[in-house]
């Protein structure tokens, strides 16, 4: 079906191209075949330049109108708001510059289209003008850099203040595992050389390390709302990247080293599900899913919003499906969930970190 459609489209395009060539040819009014631009060509293409300007504005407006809704909802982390503000400002500047420069470029192309006996202006230099348009980007960029670097330094300053929860994100082809420090909130030593699949030591924990025994290893990441989390990322095979778009957070997982990222979740999953943007998004997705269900297609179960961890560094065949659910919940819910887990040493986890 699709093939037929594609072929039809291609045939139509071929016809359109042929017709357009004809139009261009007719527009040359029997002038001697000349492969350089004539006044007529200049005029037609000058007008088309103007039309193209409208097209660029049009596709911009169209995209904003149609696709703003697909963008990520409001951030679920403490630093996310600042990230979003900086993004908004940068975008505003970009769109301002884009609108003006595209206008000038295409408008000039239209306005100064060539005509016989027209004289171009011999205008080779103007130091003042050049100085102005060097200094303006310098100032604007300096402002963006300062703000950007200030935010960057804050985000990347990973420290142990405010009693952060310590969590390891462990990547392998093609799934994620999370490990909590347990009662002592300290991760036991680990190395891939100590992996012992037969004895269920899949993350290579050092069994002789006293800190390891109370570690909790899980396949679904739960985080208490409002508490800073320090992530330690590890990978056992190839590069992966722990991408948590709803938290504006990402860090590569590199075999042979431990990388870090830190953020504070500020909205529980339940709260996110109440966010009007999220509600709309879920509705739209479920409409598509309902249609699929009606057509008997796969991937049609209704969806409920969840935070998600994706792999964002090419890591092999199933890179596109390497994910883990993240649940942000209240401290009580978290404690309850934690209490239902087993520690590495085999005991029931207590959940509450010793303060």
């Amino acid at each position: 079906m699709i093939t037929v459609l594609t072929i039809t489209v291609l045939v139509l395009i071929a016809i359109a191209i042929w017709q357009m060539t004809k139009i261009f040819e007719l527009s040359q009014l029997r002038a001697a075949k000349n492969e350089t631009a004539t006044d007529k060509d200049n005029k037609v293409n000058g007008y088309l330049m103007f039309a193209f300007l409208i097209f660029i504005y049009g596709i911009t407006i169209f995209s904003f109108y149609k696709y703003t809704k697909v963008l990520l909802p409001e951030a679920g982390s403490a630093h996310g708001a600042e990230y979003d503000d900086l993004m908004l400002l940068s975008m505003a500047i970009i769109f301002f510059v884009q609108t003006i420069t595209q206008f000038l470029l295409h408008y000039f192309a239209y306005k100064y289209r060539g005509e016989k006996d027209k004289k171009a202006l011999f205008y080779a230099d103007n130091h003042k003008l050049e100085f102005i348009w060097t200094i303006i980007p310098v100032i604007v960029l300096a402002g963006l850099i300062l703000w950007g670097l200030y935010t960057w330094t804050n985000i990347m300053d990973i420290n142990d203040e405010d009693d952060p929860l310590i969590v390891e994100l462990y990547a392998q082809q093609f799934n994620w595992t999370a490990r909590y420090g347990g009662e002592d909130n300290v991760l036991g030593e680990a190395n891939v050389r100590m992996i012992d699949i037969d004895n269920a030591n899949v993350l290579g924990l050092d069994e002789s390390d006293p800190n390891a025994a109370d570690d909790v290893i899980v396949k679904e990441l739960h985080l208490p709302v409002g508490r800073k989390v320090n992530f330690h990322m590890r990978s056992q095979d190839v590069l992966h990247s722990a991408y948590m778009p709803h938290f504006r957070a990402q860090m590569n997982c590199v075999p042979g080293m431990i990388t870090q990222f830190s953020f504070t979740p500020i909205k529980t999953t339940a709260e996110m599900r109440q966010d009007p943007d999220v509600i709309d998004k879920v509705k739209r997705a479920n409409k598509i899913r309902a249609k699929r269900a009606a057509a008997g297609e796969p991937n049609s179960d209704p969806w409920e919003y969840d935070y998600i961890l994706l792999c964002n560094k090419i890591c092999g065949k199933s890179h596109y499906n390497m994910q883990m659910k993240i649940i942000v919940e209240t401290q009580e819910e978290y404690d309850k969930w934690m209490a239902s887990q087993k520690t590495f040493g085999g005991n029931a986890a207590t959940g509450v970190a010793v303060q």
Partner: protein
Amino acid sequence: MSGTHEHDDDHGHHHKETFITKYIFSMDHKMIAKQYLITGLIMGFIGIAMSLLFRMQLAWPGESFPVFEALLGKWAPGGVMDADVYLALVTMHGTIMVFFVLTAGLSGTFSNLLIPLQIGARDMASGLLNMISYWLFFTSAVIMVISLFIESGPAAAGWTVYPPLSALPMAQSGSGLGMTLWLVSMAIFIASSLLGSLNYIVTVINLRTKGMSMTRLPLTTWALFVTAIIGVVSFPVLFSAALLLIMDRSFGTSFFLSDIFIQGEVLHYQGGSPVLYEHLFWFLGHPEVYIVILPAMGIVSDVMATNARKPIFGYRAMIMSIIAIAFLSTIVWGHHMFISGMNPFLGSVFTFTTLLIAIPSAVKAFNWITTIWKGNLQMNVAMLFSIGFVSTFITGGLTGIILGDSTLDINVHDTYFVVAHFHLVMGISALYGLLAGVYHWFPKMFGKMMNKNLGYVHFWITAICAYGVFFPMHFVGMAGVPRRYYENTAFPMFDELTDVNILITVFALIAGATQLVFVGNFIYSIFYGKKAEQNPWRATTLEWTTPVEHIHGNWPGAIPEVHRWAYDYSKTNENGEYVLPGQDFVPQTVPLQDGEEELSH
């Protein structure tokens, strides 16, 4: 020129030329340029076809297509594309487009064609090295294409081939023989590029004709010259990265590998770091994008000035910005690695240098816009592609401000936002530069004119589709869709992106089909095109003073002397008359006229 045919130069004696020495193992720079161009276009055809295949998979995930079955065979069982081959296609598409089309195809073609012609030289400094350079390039292209057909599949670790994925055959089938061939091909490619670049540099420095000072060089030559320098500085670093990767793969060293457990087994590697590879790769990789774009910038500058019938605005500023970009391009590589695990302080430094490089780029954009202001624009096809270049360069360049900001990069790194950004600023822009160059210098290469109407159709459809493909793609990225995903169906949050993915793919298919118009025009015009005049665009530069029929040594008589810069378009005397009566341009070979001032350019 005076009509005396003094055969005072050594090119005078005619050796017998056979088909082999003329068309195959030619040492003539003009023939080598054509070889580069045609090889590059063929590779471009393959690369773009690949992108159409994987774009179809993205729009209609898991759908069965007979084309897949026909082209991919066992990798598309039942016509459904396999996830491994998706990655292989993306990888080979990126590799081919960046290195084989836009590095060799673009700067190889135009450096060879234009450097000797524009500086007034009979040929490159070393015709032999030049020939070897082309044949090494050809060999590397053949090896790369062969790798598509091997049992275990071609390299599939992304065009950046980061280890450990690229180093471990058990991580991915493409990391077996396919990866070996990729590395061998690239090593040969680098050798070719170095030989070519050294030749270009020496030629520009030593073989300029009398009067052709550096400040009279056309900007195309300036750009090609600086491109060659960047290549010589940065390609050896990629070579060392490739070499170390080969050692890790084949000889058990641990430069990039450490602590790996894969398929139930601990590997012996210890102490290496994948981040080191990233540094080495991007030390070339970033300059590489300027290797791709600078020649396009040079071409666009000259094509614009010629067709605007105006001097390029701010000639000196243009040169300074080329040099500034070249210099800065070697100290910004870390912006590809903000979240690689590298020290965050380094990230701050690279943010700073990256936003610095935006400044010369902005200056160039403003200067191009001013160049067409109050011009008498001749809308030849090359001119349209040049204007298109400035448009896409601005659109794509602006989003660089976001990606270059380490903070903002956190959430868009490796998403489709990046894909949209670099296609506009580097892929499409450089492709426009290449096409502008082909339309503009086709008469010089083949002695024929290309059909302009087919050219107009080609341009307008391509221009619309380029925006149609890559503008909405920014939104896909900002919705959080990672690149190099075989399909987005595993995440319900991406369900609603199906529409936009179909839209993008339809635009891509139309764009791809439209390139056939160009191919047809190109081939047809070589054989049946209208015969070209000597100087069809009424340009000032030296290449248009050579005869239409190619001869060894370029000029039949003495090499012309240069008396002025390359941009005396529409220059008038004080009385408002053109310097040369009745002609709105003054070729570089024309001495200063009575009472004419030479501006201090």
